[in-house]
């Protein structure tokens, strides 16, 4: 493709190609502190569809090694978002080296908290707030669980903050442009701090499994084993594809790590709950 770049996030290398320069420039700016990929595990392609659509009402079709035939194209102005979605898609459909969980991960020392939840449950904002308080940010979209060791490997991509959460952007961070009118509303990407990026090859042992719910009165509930296991399978984007190693990894995670459902009304309460649970381990 005409324009291209590579980048590495934790154990995964991406090649991103584009029919326009803009998205590549935006990616390189947001990922300026990330290493290049020596090896590309996945390709993302931002394509014009028809050749004349490079100029006429340009819109981006997200493609790559894996693609979704029915995915709606995005306007050129949202090229960075297209690249991010493209990378998510490759991971969700193609990654097999780890069990993937829809979860954010932060670490203190060599132990990690895995916070599992769908978009909107607050896992991204919690991860960001905890990172502000000295926790190491290991990712907010995918938790990578190594089937052999049970360790969580970092995948610290930029966090995409939406709408109300935009107010929470910490000072001094590398950010992308404000993208308005996306399918999810207003979005801005915020890179993790440089320490988190520099530590992207250091795994941590999961020590606490949280299922947070934002916007509810404070409540803590230990999860019974079956509920925890089923929620983990529901949170895993590649559980079926992983087959037996997936089953073993999630049964092991469930057996070895305490699991708690946490409801919290606001960020401060969430942080307090997390710190209290961690202290009680």
């Amino acid at each position: 493709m005409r324009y291209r770049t590579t980048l590495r996030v934790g154990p995964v290398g991406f090649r991103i190609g584009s029919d326009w320069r803009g998205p590549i420039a935006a990616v390189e700016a947001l990922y300026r502190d990330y290493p290049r990929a020596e090896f590309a595990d996945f390709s993302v392609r931002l394509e014009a569809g028809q050749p004349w659509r490079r100029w006429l009402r340009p819109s981006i079709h997200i493609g790559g090694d894996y693609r979704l035939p029915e995915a709606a194209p995005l306007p050129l102005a949202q090229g960075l978002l297209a690249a991010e979605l493209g990378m998510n898609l490759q991971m969700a459909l193609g990654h097999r080296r780890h069990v993937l969980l829809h979860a954010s991960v932060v670490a203190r020392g060599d132990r990690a908290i895995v916070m599992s939840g769908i978009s909107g449950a607050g896992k991204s904002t919690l991860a960001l707030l905890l990172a502000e308080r000295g926790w190491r940010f290991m990712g907010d979209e995918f938790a990578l669980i190594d089937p052999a060791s049970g360790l969580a490997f970092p995948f610290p991509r930029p966090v995409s903050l939406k709408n109300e959460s935009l107010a929470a952007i910490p000072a001094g961070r590398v950010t992308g442009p404000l993208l308005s009118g996306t399918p999810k509303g207003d979005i801005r990407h915020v890179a993790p701090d440089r320490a988190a990026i520099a530590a992207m090859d250091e795994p941590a042992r999961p020590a606490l499994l949280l299922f947070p719910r934002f916007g509810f009165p404070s409540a803590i509930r230990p999860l019974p084993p079956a509920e925890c296991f089923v929620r983990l399978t529901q949170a895993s984007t590649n559980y079926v594809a992983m087959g037996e190693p997936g089953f073993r990894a999630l049964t092991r995670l469930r057996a070895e790590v305490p699991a708690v459902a946490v409801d919290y009304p606001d960020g401060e309460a969430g942080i307090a709950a997390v710190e209290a649970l961690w202290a009680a381990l």
Partner: protein
Amino acid sequence: MDETPQPYRTDDDGPEPSRAATSSRRALMLGAIGASTVVAIRPALAQTTGSVLNCQIPVPDPGRAGSYIARDGSTVPARTQGSFAPPSRPYTGEEVKRALQGGQLPNSNSLSNRAYLNYIRRLQRGQGGFTCYASLQMPGG
């Protein structure tokens, strides 16, 4: 907010069954008619994959082309009595999904519909259409 989260003890069936005259066996419910005790976990596909899957499920898979479908979904030699000729084309994920929710597959009557669905439900990993079938079973479409 005080509980230390503890891993639950995994349950087993309790003490070894006693051979003494007095029964110390624990109760076991054989279950209710209509309530299932074996449920396949249907993991959600990635949130990013969208709701409509363009995959296909051939009945039967290409490795068994020419076989007929018995009422229980197994493949049998062509023209075996009581079995059904396969449909003329693969079904799309969308068609199978609707049929699993109570509709009917195209090009079938109520009998062959059931046979085809039983075939699809018995698909194993490695057979054509299995990944498509597995991916249909995500909650909420």
